[in-house]
């Protein structure tokens, strides 16, 4: 399993969830981004769950039909705030007030819709690990078994 040395702290210097942090919103692409994707991406269920625990508003933005996105989250047992089609990312921004909006994906289509929707874009293959990706157990970032090569 590929491991990455984690950053030393979060944006506000804290290494874990805390009250009063800025509210961030993270939109996840699925295929090529999450381990449940076709093909599997590097972001694991544990990472996403941790992001939610840390207080991020999370959801998915994918070319998969919305019903299938919902099925996927149900399979993972994670309740999310939004499931939208890729070209509908902008609607997420109008629905949720947040201090930061990030879309994580693996293709230039993800980058395009992030940009036109006012989101920061993180290319999953090359992004620096976010603090919520770090395992509290060993302080490492455990990407999914397929790694980050796709």
């Amino acid at each position, binding site marked *: 399993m590929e491991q990455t040395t984690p950053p030393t702290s979060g944006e506000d210097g804290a290494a874990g969830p805390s009250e009063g942090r800025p509210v961030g919103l993270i939109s996840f692409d699925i295929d090529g981004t999450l381990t449940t994707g076709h093909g599997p991406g590097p972001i694991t269920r544990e990472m996403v769950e941790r992001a939610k625990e840390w207080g991020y508003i999370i959801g998915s933005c994918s070319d998969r039909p919305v019903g299938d996105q919902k099925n996927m989250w149900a399979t993972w047992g994670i309740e999310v705030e939004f499931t939208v089609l890729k*070209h509908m990312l902008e609607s997420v921004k109008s629905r949720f007030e947040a201090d930061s909006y990030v879309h994580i994906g693996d293709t*230039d*289509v993800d980058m*395009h819709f992030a940009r036109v929707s006012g989101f920061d874009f993180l290319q999953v293959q090359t992004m620096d690990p976010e603090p919520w990706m770090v395992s509290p157990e060993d302080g490492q970032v455990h990407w999914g078994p397929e790694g980050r090569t796709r």
Partner: protein
Amino acid sequence: MPKTIPVADELDKPFWDGVNEKKLVLQYCTACERLQYPIKANCVHCDTKDPLDWKEVEGKGHILETLVVHDTRVVRLKGDVPFNVSIISLDEDPSINFLANLPGTPVTEAPQGAAVEVVFEELEPGRFIHDWKVVE
């Protein structure tokens, strides 16, 4: 839109030379008396082995249909999506058709069937490309 720049070759140089002089000069088959575009080595209409001639056309046409590109492989155009791609029929021979971006016409507002005229867009100093715009 920053169109990609066509690279002329020996066969189609007369066409691009014409475009650089802001003229639309198409191939013309003297055997079957038909125009041809895009430029090809042989006549697509008849079996003649005679070399094709060249003929300047007026550059008037009509919009057949308009597609809207939302995602493109052409990297140079990625920043411009969505954009119009219209298919233009040439008035002098409606079987000849061209692609057009309809400069000046907002995306999704291309008037189907409208009259258009050729325009020439400078891509590099002295190097032009043909496009079509709606006649007001």
